[in-house]
C-alpha cells in the first residue's frame, strides 16, 4: 500500500450520455481503507459515476486513477488486471442466472487464482457463510429471494478479497435489519481485509453509520456541491440542498 498516493483519484471527470452532460468537473480522492459515500438525489448520476470508477464507461473528459495508474491510458490487459482487483455489488446482485451460486463464486476464483477444485469449493462455502447463505451452493439465482441474491452477489464480489469494494445502493430492497447487518458486514470487511469501500447510496441511516468521507452530487449544478465526512456535513453544511437531504426535511 502506498500511503501517500490516494487509492482512487478522480481528476476533472466529465460524464455524458451522447450529448447530455450528466456530471462535470468532478474532482475527489478516496484514500486507502476509507468508506467513501457518493450521495445525491435520484437521477443525479451516482450510478453512472460508479460505472466510470469501475471502468465500465470511459470518461468523455478527465481521468480516473486507480492506485496511481490512469485507467484509460493503461493497456487493455493492464486495465483488466486493475479491474479484476475490484469487487462490485450491483443493485440487483447481477448474479449469472444460468449458474448456481457456487458456480457464480467459482468463476472469478478459477480465473484469477491457482486454487485446486477442492480449495475452490472450500472458499465458496466460506464466502457464502460470511453472508449468511451457508448451504445454498447449489441454488440458482432465480430460486432465492431478492435479499439473498444481493448477499450472494456480495459473496461473489468478495471472492478474490478485492482491494476496492464498490456497492451500488446496497440497502435498496432490503428490510431494515438486513440493511443494518449489511452495514456491519461492510465495516468488518474494511477492518479485516483492509479494503477500500465506495458506496453509492441515499440511505441516510447507513450513510451516517459507515461513511468516513463523502461527496454530494447535484442534478442541477451537475457537479459536487459538498464533500467531507457525512456527520460533519450534517453539522456544518450551509447549503440548503445538502441540509434538506441529510435531515430529510423539505
Amino acid at each position: 500500500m502506498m500511503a501517500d498516493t490516494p487509492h482512487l483519484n478522480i481528476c476533472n471527470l466529465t460524464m455524458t450520455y451522447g450529448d447530455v452532460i450528466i456530471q462535470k468537473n468532478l474532482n475527489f480522492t478516496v484514500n486507502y481503507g476509507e468508506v467513501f459515500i457518493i450521495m445525491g438525489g435520484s437521477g443525479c448520476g451516482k450510478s453512472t459515476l460508479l460505472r466510470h470508477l469501475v471502468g465500465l464507461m470511459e470518461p468523455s473528459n478527465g481521468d480516473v486513477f486507480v492506485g496511481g495508474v490512469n485507467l484509460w491510458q493503461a493497456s487493455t490487459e493492464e486495465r483488466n488486471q486493475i479491474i479484476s482487483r475490484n469487487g462490485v455489488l450491483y443493485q440487483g446482485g447481477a448474479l449469472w442466472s444460468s449458474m448456481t451460486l457456487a458456480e457464480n463464486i467459482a468463476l472469478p476464483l478459477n480465473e484469477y487464482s491457482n486454487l485446486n477444485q477442492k480449495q475452490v469449493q472450500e472458499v465458496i462455502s466460506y464466502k457464502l457463510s460470511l453472508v449468511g447463505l451457508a448451504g445454498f451452493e447449489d441454488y440458482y439465482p432465480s430460486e432465492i429471494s431478492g435479499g439473498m441474491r444481493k448477499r450472494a452477489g456480495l459473496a461473489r464480489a468478495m471472492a478474490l478479497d478485492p482491494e476496492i469494494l464498490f456497492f451500488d445502493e446496497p440497502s435498496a430492497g432490503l428490510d431494515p435489519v438486513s440493511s443494518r447487518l449489511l452495514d456491519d458486514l461492510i465495516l468488518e470487511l474494511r477492518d479485516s481485509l483492509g479494503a477500500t469501500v465506495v458506496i453509492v447510496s441515499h440511505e441516510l441511516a447507513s450513510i451516517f453509520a459507515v461513511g468516513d468521507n463523502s461527496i454530494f452530487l447535484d442534478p442541477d449544478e451537475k457537479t459536487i456541491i459538498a464533500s467531507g465526512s457525512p456527520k460533519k456535513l450534517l453539522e456544518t453544511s450551509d447549503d440548503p440542498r445538502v441540509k434538506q437531504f441529510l435531515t430529510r426535511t423539505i
Partner: protein
Amino acid sequence: MSAKISEKYQIELLSDGLNLQLSGDWRFQSDIPDLDSLLRQILDAHPQKLSFDCQQLGRWDSGLMTFLVKLIRSCKDHNISVDQGTLPTGIQKLLQLAFAVPERKGAHRAILGQPVLAKIGNVTIEMHRNWSDLLAFVGELFFGFLNFLRGRARFRYSDLFFQIEMAGPSALLIITLISVLIGMILAFVGAVQLRMFGAEIFIANLVGLGMAREMGAMMTAIIMAGRTGAAYAAQLGTMQVNEEIDALKTMGISPIEFLVFPRLLALCLTMPLLCIYADFMGIIGGAIVSATMLDISFFQYFQQIQGFVPLRHFGIGIFKAGVFGVLVATAGCFRGLQCGRSASAVGFAATSAVVTSIVLIIVADAVITVLCQLIGI
C-alpha cells in the same frame, strides 16, 4: 346578474370580478363541461379577479382537478388573480401540490414534430452507427478467435456442450418436419412439369440437387435463426438488463469470449451436421412423393440420385451451412449485447436478431452461389 350556462357551473358578475359557482358531481364518470367555452367567456369579461363558490359542489375527483388546474393556469397567463380561499381545503392542497414544482424547462420532448428530412437523417446516422458497431463486434470476435487458437480464450467447456446440445439434438424434430415437407413440395412442383415430358425419373435429380446445394442448408439456417439466433439475443439481452454482462466485464472477463464464443462454436459445429440430416430428410420426402404419385420405386429413386448428384453438391451445401451458422450466431449475439436496459428492448433484440440473420443468410447464399459459378463447381 347571473347567467346559467350549464348545470355544472354558473358565472356571476361581481363588482371586483367574476364568481364561478360550481354545482353537482364533478367526476370522471359524470359529464365534465368543455373548458374552452367557459374560458372564452371569462377572458372576454376581462375581470381582475376570479373567485369560487363551492356550496353546491357534490362529489369530485381528478375530473374537477384537471379542469381547475387548466383554468388557473390560463388565468395566470392573462393576469387574472385567482382567489383559491373559497375552494374546499382538499382541493386547495391538491392545487398546491400541482403547482409546487414548476414544469422543468426542456422536459417536454420535441421529437414528434421533426421534419421528414431530419427523420431520414436520424435513421441514416442510426444505420451507420449500427454497421460500425457490427464491424467492431466482428473485430472483437476475430481477436477472441486468435485467443482461442492460442488456447487462451476464457470460456467454460460445460457451456459449450450445453449450447451444442441446445442447438443440435434439440432442433432435430423441427428440422425433420420442415425438411421432409420441403422435399415433398419440391417433388410435387417438379412432378407436374416433368410428367408432361415423361421424364418423371428426373424428379430424383431435382430433389437431390435442390436439397443438397440449396434448400437443406437454407432451411436449416432459417429454422436456426428463428429458434437459436433469437434465443441467443434474448439470453444475452436479459443478461444485459440484469447487469450480468457488466458483472463479467468488471471481473476482467470478456463477454465475447465467455458468452459469444461457446454459442458461435456450437452453431458452427452443429449446423453442418444438421444440414446433412436435413438433406437426407428432404430426399426421403421426395422419395415418398415419387413412390406414391409417380410410381418410381425407392430403389430407382436412390440409384438415380447416387448416379447424378455428385458429392460435391453436398459439400457446397454443408460449407454454406457452416457459414450460415457463423452468421446466425453472430447476429443473435450482436443484437443481444447491443440490447438496451428494458424489457421491451429484449423483445426488440430478438426480433432484429432474426431479421438480421435472415438478411445475412440470403446475401451470403447469393454470394456463395455466384462464387461457385465463377470457379465452376
